[in-house]
């Protein structure tokens, strides 16, 4: 571990909330309420300099009065009192802290932030923030977000860790993740990055076995070269998908060289992400659908796609998307596969790739086609279009696809386009571990990202960079 140790922050045995309040409008109240709602099973301490008891929990005037080991202190008090509270945490032997409060460097109060950093360093006490949402870990049931659970749905348990500089973008994406077909490992909102920054977070997540995929929202980085090294380290072992805010910055005005005119700040960030082997997302939806495929899929052996569809038009769109991806191609089916398919498919089915199993296809026809195609060594990945508006497609098809997916050793994604009835089946398939997309283009882009990431990772490890 090269960075600061964040384990006591994400897997704390005991938590103190400094600034916990009786007033439901106060941040400190929501945080305490959320701890209770989330079912956190460790010890909760409450610190408030006026009250004796909050929500039935005994309140201490100062953290130093607690006289017990504390893994994490969450600080939600006005900024000017934070350095002293942090000093008290240090003296009380607190292992890690999260400063939720704003009012530091983001409004020009650099001195106050510098004092906070000095205290954190003095006690070697990893400190997250200030001006952040803190952390969430659905396994340890830790949730320091000051956003009520009825307003912001919490994601289920899974393998995706989400790192966000911004609290607002962070909580929005978190809300969206809760309705996506993948679960959360950790959420870390690091705000002003005064002490713990993105490098510490990446190093921690790299070694965290519960994290399979990392998604990141970044606006700016301070330790540029060290970031590149940390980014390269983690990309070698797990995929990182990055969305960068603030891309519109253009090249330097009145540049003296062509190079400076072409390559501005935004281009420099993109170059660093590419050099590190990150997957670059252009917007929030790309961030989510790349995360979905990366979490559930195995590395593909190659870039040859087989398409199976119960709608001709959707198959054409998917074929076009494969052609335009520049990375994937349509698989050429073996003579043996074609022969076997011709025997079992109805005569109206034209046996080729894309395979249009026709509008009346049911789960049996999909099942027999996929079972044959799975055996074809010329196919590396599957794009299955299942349109639930057709007569043959119902819950049995959704269940059959989940079943086939579990037997599959190759990547498989499903495209289902439609409203309420389709959404219901999408949930069935996604809870069974099948990534489902609304459009053939998004599905193909995701398969291409999966292929590119693993191909580059392999090439990098070969050339040892």
């Amino acid at each position, binding site marked *: 571990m090269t960075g600061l140790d964040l384990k006591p922050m994400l897997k704390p045995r005991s938590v103190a909330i400094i600034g916990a309040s009786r007033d439901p409008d106060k941040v400190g109240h929501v945080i305490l309420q959320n701890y209770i709602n989330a079912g956190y099973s460790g010890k909760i301490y409450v610190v408030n300099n006026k009250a004796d008891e909050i929500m039935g929990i005994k309140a201490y005037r100062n953290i130093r009065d607690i006289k017990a080991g504390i893994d994490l202190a969450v600080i939600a008090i006005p900024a000017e009192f934070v350095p002293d509270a942090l000093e008290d945490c240090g003296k009380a032997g607190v292992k890690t802290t999260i400063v939720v409060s704003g009012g530091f460097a983001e409004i020009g109060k650099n001195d106050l932030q510098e004092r906070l950093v000095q205290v954190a360093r003095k006690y070697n006490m990893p400190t997250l923030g200030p001006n952040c949402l803190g952390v969430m870990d659905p396994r340890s049931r830790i949730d320091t977000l000051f956003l009520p659970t009825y307003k912001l749905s919490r994601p289920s348990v899974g393998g995706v860790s989400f790192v966000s500089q911004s609290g607002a973008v962070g909580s929005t994406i978190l809300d969206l993740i809760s309705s996506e077909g993948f679960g959360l490992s950790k959420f870390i909102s690091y705000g002003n990055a005064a002490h713990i920054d993105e490098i510490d977070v990446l190093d921690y997540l790299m070694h965290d076995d519960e994290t399979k995929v990392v998604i990141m929202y970044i606006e700016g980085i301070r330790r*540029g070269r060290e970031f*590149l090294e940390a980014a390269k380290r983690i990309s070698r072992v797990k995929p990182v998908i990055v969305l960068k805010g603030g891309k519109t910055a253009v090249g330097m005005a009145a540049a*003296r*060289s*062509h*190079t400076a005119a*072409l390559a501005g700040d935004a281009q420099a960030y993109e170059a660093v992400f*590419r050099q590190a082997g990150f997957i670059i997302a252009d917007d929030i939806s790309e961030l989510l659908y790349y995360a979905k495929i990366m979490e559930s899929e195995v590395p593909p052996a190659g870039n040859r796609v087989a398409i199976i569809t119960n709608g001709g038009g959707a198959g054409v769109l998917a074929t076009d998307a494969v052609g335009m991806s520049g990375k994937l191609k349509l698989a050429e089916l073996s003579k043996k596969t074609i022969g076997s398919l011709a025997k079992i498919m109805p005569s109206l089915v034209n046996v080729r790739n894309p395979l249009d199993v026709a509008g009346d296809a049911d789960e049996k026809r999909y099942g027999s086609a996929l079972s044959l195609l799975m055996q074809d060594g010329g196919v590396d990945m599957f794009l299955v279009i299942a349109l639930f508006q057709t007569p043959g497609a119902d819950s049995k098809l959704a269940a059959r696809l989940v079943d086939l997916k579990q037997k599959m050793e190759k990547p498989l994604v499903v495209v289902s386009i439609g409203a309420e009835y389709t959404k219901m089946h999408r949930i069935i398939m996604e809870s069974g571990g099948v990534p489902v997309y609304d459009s053939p283009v998004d599905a193909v882009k995701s398969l291409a990202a999966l292929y590119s990431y693993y191909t580059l990772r392999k090439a990098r490890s070969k050339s040892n960079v």
Partner: protein
Amino acid sequence: MALLDYIEAQKLLLKYSIKSAPAKYVSTPGDAISFANGRRIALKGISNKALHKSKAGLVRLDLVSDTEISKAFSEIKAIASKFAPYKILAQQMSTGGVEIIIGGRIDPQFGKLILIGLGGIYVEAFKDFSLRTCPITRFDAEEMLAELRSGDVITYKGKNRSGMINLLMKTSKMLNDNDWIQELDLNPVIVKPESYDVVDIRVLGD
């Protein structure tokens, strides 16, 4: 930030075995004619006050006869006198290839960056370039070429790929070794199926 003298810049490139078109300062039309010695040359007015030579009207290309050379010399002299002090550079013409740009700059966050792209008059029009932080590895150089839409054109469908990779790696080393370089343009570099010529150099430094 100042512009490094052209001949000094050539010497710097040569230390990293980056070849540029043979060039020499000339002070009279006669100097230029004897430098040409029957071959095609270019004449360029060089001044710290006119970083964009073509835009300032300080470049004359493809000169061969004595009269062409003399005429171009006096035209450049007339314009360059407005940007004094100046020098006039005679350079052997390199023609017929694909024009690319190789460049560098210092990013406040990530340090030295290296760039390759379609060059010459196409730089602004197509903005087809790729970028990395220095030093680059061979893998990075390969990736940079693969990212370009014009990759196949620049490498002649792979024929000159290893030449371009070597050029990128040498430039990266030069940028990395010389902290004082703030900005670099090798633009254009004329790429041919089996070789290349750096035709214009701009090194800005402390």
